[in-house]
């Protein structure tokens, strides 16, 4: 394990290797594809049964909702949006890390992303699926859910194009589509690897179909890289757009505490924050369970922790600016809404949110905490709790005390609120476990590209291979990784 400790060193000018140990192309394939090809671990079966049971709770709750109506939830006339939208925004937020890692970090040439992007993208897709449950069932008559889309019909009935809820349908479905495409394009070469290694006819056929006839020729790779680059370029603004539109759901209204101009970037920062925390939680477990510590190294975890503390601080900035402007505006409704948040009946939720999102992540300023697995595991869960509370606080506190004091109400969740939310974890976990079992959880082809062996010019000064436009200077490779 000595090589696992080595990543702690940080010498400027020397890049630590992105994968550890004496890895070569074959060993990377073995360690990743081996997970999919080996016998089903007992622990996986246990977890899968657990996840399925939780999924059944979701199905039961939704069944009850569909047969009885929205009234089974605790929403009341004052608080018309509560756990449903909280759950929706919570999951959509989590669904931001995957595409951020795969698109934005790709555009910034952050090669460390290669070990984590596949699982993060998968997580994104499953989180978006879980999010979709809420608006889908909140429409009440779920069999009419297709009315959300602008489909020409004989009734001449259209969604309200001026409503941010409709923009949401567009933003989320676009995001889901592009995320799936991006994920799938990245999977193609690895699916071909699995096809080629398949020991049974079924596996060969199934993986073969999805590998789209990939042969790994130069032409294939050239097209692949071009497609990947274009998808990354398209996805980068999408990452921003989805949570921007989600924030519009609130901010275009005139409800104090909802209507404030910082919402779009603030929601995006919060989404990345929660998404990274979820990736963290899952990766800590997965790397340990499948022995991938040399591919997903301490360096990866530390980098993600840095992103968490950075985005957490941005969220803290937004809280502070919101509070300051609520006072500065001199607007009595604005300042009431904020004071009510912090010191009203939901103050317990507010201070849970502040401590989970702003205070605890600050521990990551210390390298000791940033590189301690138990510490980061706990903090990643704390962050996710905090981000759930953030949405709850924003949504419920503003609604529960509206402009008419006689209609003020306190929201209490019913058992079906709780089981629906809990149940979506079952959906998420079921999908994620299936992913871990049947698809390569690390991008084999991409990780190989950051191995020392993939560097065509390691440690040669005078190989005469100049960068275009480097005006005759001979390059000196710093270090293979």
């Amino acid at each position, binding site marked *: 394990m000595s090589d696992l400790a080595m990543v702690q060193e940080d010498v400027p*000018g020397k*890049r630590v290797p992105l994968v550890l140990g004496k890895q070569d192309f074959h060993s990377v394939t073995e360690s990743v594809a081996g997970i999919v090809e080996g016998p089903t671990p007992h622990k996986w079966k246990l977890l899968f049964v657990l996840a399925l049971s939780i999924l059944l709770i979701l199905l039961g709750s939704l069944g009850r909702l569909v047969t009885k109506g929205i009234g089974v939830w605790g929403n009341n006339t004052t608080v018309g949006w509560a756990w449903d939208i909280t759950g929706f925004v919570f999951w959509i937020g989590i669904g931001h890390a995957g595409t951020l890692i795969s698109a934005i970090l790709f555009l910034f040439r952050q090669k460390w992303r290669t070990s984590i992007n596949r699982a993060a993208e998968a997580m994104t897709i499953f989180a978006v699926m879980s999010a979709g449950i809420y608006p889908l069932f909140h429409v009440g008559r779920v069999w009419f859910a297709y009315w959300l889309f602008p489909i020409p019909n004989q009734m001449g009935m259209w969604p309200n194009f001026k409503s941010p809820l409709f923009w949401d349908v567009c933003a989320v479905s676009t995001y889901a589509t592009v995320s799936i495409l991006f994920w799938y394009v990245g999977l193609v070469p690895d699916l071909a690897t699995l096809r080629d290694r398949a020991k049974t006819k079924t596996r060969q056929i199934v993986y073969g179909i999805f590998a789209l006839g990939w042969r790994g020729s130069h032409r294939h790779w050239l097209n692949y890289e071009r497609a990947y680059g274009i998808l990354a370029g398209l996805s980068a603004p999408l990452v921003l757009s989805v949570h921007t539109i989600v924030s519009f759901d609130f901010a275009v209204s005139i409800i104090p505490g909802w*209507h404030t101009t910082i919402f779009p970037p603030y929601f995006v920062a919060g989404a990345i924050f929660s998404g990274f925390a979820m990736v963290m939680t899952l990766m800590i477990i997965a790397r340990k369970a499948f022995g991938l510590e040399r591919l997903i190294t301490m360096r990866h975890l530390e980098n993600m922790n840095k992103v968490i503390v950075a985005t957490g601080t941005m969220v803290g900035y937004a809280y502070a600016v919101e509070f300051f402007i609520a006072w500065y505006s*001199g607007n009595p409704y604005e300042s009431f809404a904020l004071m009510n948040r912090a010191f009203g009946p939901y103050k317990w939720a507010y201070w849970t949110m502040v401590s989970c999102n702003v205070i605890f992540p600050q521990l990551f300023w210390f390298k000791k905490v940033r590189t301690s697995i138990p510490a980061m595991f706990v903090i990643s869960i704390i962050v996710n709790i905090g981000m759930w509370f953030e949405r709850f606080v924003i949504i419920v506190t503003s609604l529960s005390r509206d402009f008419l004091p006689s209609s003020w109400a306190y929201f209490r969740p019913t058992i079906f609120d709780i089981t629906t939310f809990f149940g979506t974890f079952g959906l998420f976990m079921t999908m994620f476990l299936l992913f871990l079992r049947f698809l390569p959880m690390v991008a084999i082809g991409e990780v190989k590209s950051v191995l020392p062996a993939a560097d065509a010019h390691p440690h040669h000064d005078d190989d005469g291979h100049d960068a275009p436009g*480097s005006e005759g*200077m001979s390059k000196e490779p710093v270090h293979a990784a």
Partner: protein
Amino acid sequence: MSSKSGSGKTSKGAAATKPEADAPEPAEARKAKKSEAGAALGSSFKLSSEQSGKLMRVAGIVAGIGLVLGGAGFASDSKRFAFSYLVGFVWLATIGLGALFFVIVQHLVRAGWSVSPRRHLEWLSSGILPACAVLFVPVAVFAHTLYHHWMGEHAAHDELLRKKAAYLNPGFFYGRAVVFLVLWAGISLWFARTSRKQDETGDRSLSQKMQLASAPSMLVFGLSLTFAAFDWIMSLTPHWYSTIFGVYVFAGAATSSLSALVLVTIALQKAGLLKGVSTVEHRHDIGKLLFGFTVFWAYIAFSQFILIWYANLPEETVYYRDRSAGSWMVVSLALLFGHFIIPFLGLIARTAKRNITVLAGFAVWMLVMHWLDLYWMIMPTLDVGDAHFSWIDLGGLLLPAGVGAVAVARAATGGATYPLKDPRLAESMRLENA
């Protein structure tokens, strides 16, 4: 100009030969190598006295014209000049602040590609921000004209302003300004000096030191820029408020400083001062950032606009009402096209970012647009109902811009044109956009 020829000679070939990636060589061997290579390449890492003289002259001329125009402007219409000067001052300050942001962020993320651009950002920030501490004096003097809405006597009878008086009062306003300016000057000078110290010693621990300082600096930067934006611009219309305002000003700072960086990079490359150190690949990357932040600016500007427009609350829409009245609408639309659509379409292509003329053209364009953006934010307080461009506005811009140019030129002539012994220099030189 204080070029120390001695230190220049020793550092001459550091990059020209072999930027030390790992194994440190014996000092003598290195020295010998350097002088050879230095002789071969000529002095290519430092502005020659001729070049520095020319640079200082140009900057001095701009400052001179600014002084004359500004003085004449002040004499003919001191009120207009105050507002024009505020536009020019903030224009300069935001370039310096954007540059400071990028200096800090390069350390924060241990960036490898940007070693040589970082030096030029150090010039911009450590030249401009200390100069701003002095250039703020006229703003302070004019404050009662500029911020008369809340500094004037009638503020005492305004219920809203009375509520805000704990924040919006002259004493606290000046106090905050001093804090911001001292912090900015201090941080930017510290990074520039530490980086220059590394030119001489090559000490790797300096990189670590700067990395360590970068995170708290970023916090200070974010908060100070936000509140400076509230104080100096947002408080011109003291009833109006927008929580995103700090981010909006930041977005403008980022685009303008990157535009300035493009121009500095191209000028130095053309002068042959960055041979092999900074190439078309670096310009391409800076161009990508410029493109990205142009989109970011549009995103933030749009967010602010759509939320206020949609909610349609009078206390918020007043800002856009003033800016869509009369010919201000033309300026608003000019920003939509000039600050976003045209540069978006113009810079999206790879070939555009790699073409010197196109990139430099857009850099100048974006600097003008940044000025127009600030003009659009500040001037409607004076020119209510219609935009009236005047020659005084040019004086208000050229005076701070000229002083800033002199300060940047001084920073540029003082040392090497890129961090000679930065441990990541070799990595930066290998940059290639696949």
